[in-house]
């Protein structure tokens, strides 16, 4: 039989696929294994899907399904969160247990990391006690071989009661057809009778080791896990990520911004010559063009940030940060595990809130959800870059860096405050596997970066586009109808209504209030809002924007206060939606909203008042 890859068929079409012609009903196959054993990589290879992968335990926190054809049979694969044992489970593991116990899956493919066979076989033994037919997929054979571990596949199959044991290489798409064939065959003829239950004995019979740990690996381990050097190494890594994204990305941003505003100028003169309506030109160029363009100009900054985050995720360093930061996070009432979702928060708050599922307790999870939005996400970076570039061009890098630190500091204080309210003991219950360091896989990094960039560009084309349109309408329509003076527009009315509230923070300009309001849709909107509201066409001309802002009475103290407000006020709608979904609680949602608003207002007032006094 021939297995065709990739075959993208969404699980939602399962019903109609099942009854096409004389097809047999779809076979439901669950991929189950320890965290970080490569289930999602295998799932992506089997189905042609593009679920996120990474080299740390807990990347997958929800179940994903997709179907593929095997000959004329439809197989629906389910990628489940990693699990160590079926006896007990943490929040993200519950779903995996349900799949096995409720009979939703017809066959379980037990994915085993061949480089750590001892630990993986514990789950295999448990699965063999269940009623479900089992196939073992031996993954990471190359990693095992380079670590000097060799597994006798035939012997292992015998020891496990003659169940199929298939070696797979998902990246090279090898062994996949054989795996599917075995899954189909065991579904009708279950095997696994009288398996050997002594794991030590199985290992003794089937596994040979003949290599010492390399000197380089040992040195890297000692450096990254050392009590002192490990922390310094972490600080260096974070500094490199930040300054590379800021420095290198910013150079290209200037070039892209200049090119884009040049393009808009040509478009404007072209449209004028063609005799297009003035209002349409204003809508296209001043509304949509400037709005979307100002967001797209930040692509280089974010590309550098995304590449570095992807490299960190795939190298296996993320878990080490959990250990290194364990002591610091205990201050906030969390174990080191909290470091993983919080670091993701520097990319985007949405995955960070989702990743909070890896926390041990419900309370810790809620605390991470409360703290994650304070990890300044990549969408806020353009706002800081814009403000710092205009008001503190000499010290822009250090200004932006301080804002990141302030966000992390506020998160830590809030975590501590929440753990004090809950009267939790700050005992250290960290339990986390540390995967070996490896060179990041270039394809995984590229895929990861591509997905994040696509999300960003998609957002520019949808949310930012719609936001820019709305803003244009609010700016050009007023109580007196279309063509109203900008001071009489709806945006001005709305901004004036809000600005007294922001007066103690030095943000009592209706334009700024309106821009901050649009930031609730997406943080990048603040940048496009400021450019559109202050009517500066040159997307990267700091001087032009500075003149416009100064003439509006908006000085350096207000800029700093605005940056702090933008850092701390509620995250975008997408993030708030995920917080709602993940907490399942109206109280948590509204208390998070209230905390964000109160903290942002308080901090920006403090910053502004300090700045104007000293």
């Amino acid at each position, binding site marked *: 039989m021939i297995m065709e890859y990739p075959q993208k068929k969404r699980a939602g079409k399962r019903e109609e696929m099942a009854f096409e012609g004389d097809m047999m009903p779809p076979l439901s196959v669950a991929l189950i294994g320890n965290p970080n054993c490569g289930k999602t990589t295998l799932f992506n290879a089997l189905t042609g899907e593009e679920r996120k992968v990474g080299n740390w335990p807990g990347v997958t926190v929800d179940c994903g399904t997709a179907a593929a054809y095997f000959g004329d049979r439809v197989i629906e694969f389910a990628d489940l969160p990693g699990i*160590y*044992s079926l*006896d*007990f489970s943490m929040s993200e593991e519950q779903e995996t247990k349900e799949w096995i116990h409720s009979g939703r899956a017809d066959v379980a493919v037990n994915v085993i990391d061949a*480089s*750590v*066979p*001892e*630990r993986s076989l*514990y*789950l295999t033994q448990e699965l063999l006690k269940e009623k479900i037919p089992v196939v073992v997929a031996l993954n990471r054979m190359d990693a095992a071989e380079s*670590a000097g*571990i060799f597994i006798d596949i035939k012997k292992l199959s015998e020891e496990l009661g003659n169940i199929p044991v298939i070696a797979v290489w998902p990246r090279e798409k090898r062994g996949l057809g054989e795996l599917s064939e075995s899954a189909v065959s065991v579904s009708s003829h279950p095997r696994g009778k009288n398996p050997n239950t002594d794991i030590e004995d199985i290992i003794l019979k089937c596994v040979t080791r003949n*290599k*010492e*740990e390399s000197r380089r690996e*040992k040195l890297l*381990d*000692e450096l990254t*896990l*050392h*009590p002192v050097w*490990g922390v310094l190494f972490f600080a260096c890594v974070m500094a490199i990520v930040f300054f590379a994204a800021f420095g290198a990305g910013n150079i290209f941003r200037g070039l892209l911004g200049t090119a884009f505003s040049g393009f808009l100028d040509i478009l404007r003169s072209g449209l004028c010559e063609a005799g297009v309506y003035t209002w349409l030109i204003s809508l296209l160029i001043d509304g949509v063009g400037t709005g979307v363009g100002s967001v797209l100009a930040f692509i280089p900054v974010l590309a550098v940030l995304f590449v570095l985050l992807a490299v960190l995720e795939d190298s296996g360093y993320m*878990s080490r940060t*959990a*250990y290194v930061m*364990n*002591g610091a996070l*205990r201050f906030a009432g969390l*174990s*080191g595990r909290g470091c993983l979702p919080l670091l993701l928060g520097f990319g985007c708050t949405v995955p960070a809130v989702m990743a909070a599922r890896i926390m041990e307790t419900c309370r810790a999870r809620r605390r991470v959800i409360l703290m994650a939005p304070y990890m300044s996400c990549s969408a806020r970076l353009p706002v800081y870059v814009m403000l710092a570039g205009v008001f503190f061009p000499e010290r822009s890098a250090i200004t932006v860096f301080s804002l990141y630190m302030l966000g992390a500091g506020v998160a830590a204080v809030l975590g501590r405050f929440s753990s004090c309210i809950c009267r939790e003991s700050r*005992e*250290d*219950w*960290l*339990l*986390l*596997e*540390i*995967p*070996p360091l490896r060179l990041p896989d270039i394809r995984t990094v590229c895929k990861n970066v591509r997905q994040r960039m696509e999300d960003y560009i998609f957002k520019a084309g949808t949310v930012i586009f719609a936001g820019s349109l709305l803003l244009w309408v609010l700016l050009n329509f007023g109580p007196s109808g279309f063509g109203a003076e900008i001071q009489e527009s709806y945006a001005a009315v709305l901004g004036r209504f809000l600005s007294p509230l922001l007066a103690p923070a030095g943000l009592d300009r209706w334009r700024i209030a309106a821009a901050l309001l649009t930031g609730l849709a997406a943080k990048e909107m603040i940048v496009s809002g400021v450019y559109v509201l202050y009517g500066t066409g040159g997307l990267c001309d700091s001087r032009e924007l500075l003149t416009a802002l100064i003439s509006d009475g908006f000085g350096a103290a207000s800029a700093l206060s605005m940056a702090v407000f933008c850092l701390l006020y509620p995250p975008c709608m997408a993030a708030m939606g995920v917080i709602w979904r993940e907490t399942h609680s109206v109280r948590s949602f509204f208390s998070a909203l209230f905390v964000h608003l109160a903290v942002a207002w308080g901090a920006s007032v403090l910053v502004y008042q300090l700045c104007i006094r000293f």
Partner: protein
Amino acid sequence: MTLYEGETGKSYRIHSIVTKEELAARLRALGIREHATTVILSRRKKGAMIISIKGTRMALGRKIAEGIRIREEESDDHGIPAKETGRQKRRNGI
């Protein structure tokens, strides 16, 4: 003695796991079981530690390490003290 009291670089054999049943089951699933040999790779003062067990590295918090009772590995037939054996084992990546 407990794992928390162990020294960096030394090899120990796990004697028993004295903690909440659910956590003990989790530790066993992770390979931290009675009679298994483990080496302490790194530790932070009054804090978490990294151990090597069954070919993997695990980060353990203090509270968990305190629930794992261990015995020092006996010195081998050549009379090399246990400390040396521990380092040797660590070098071999066990």
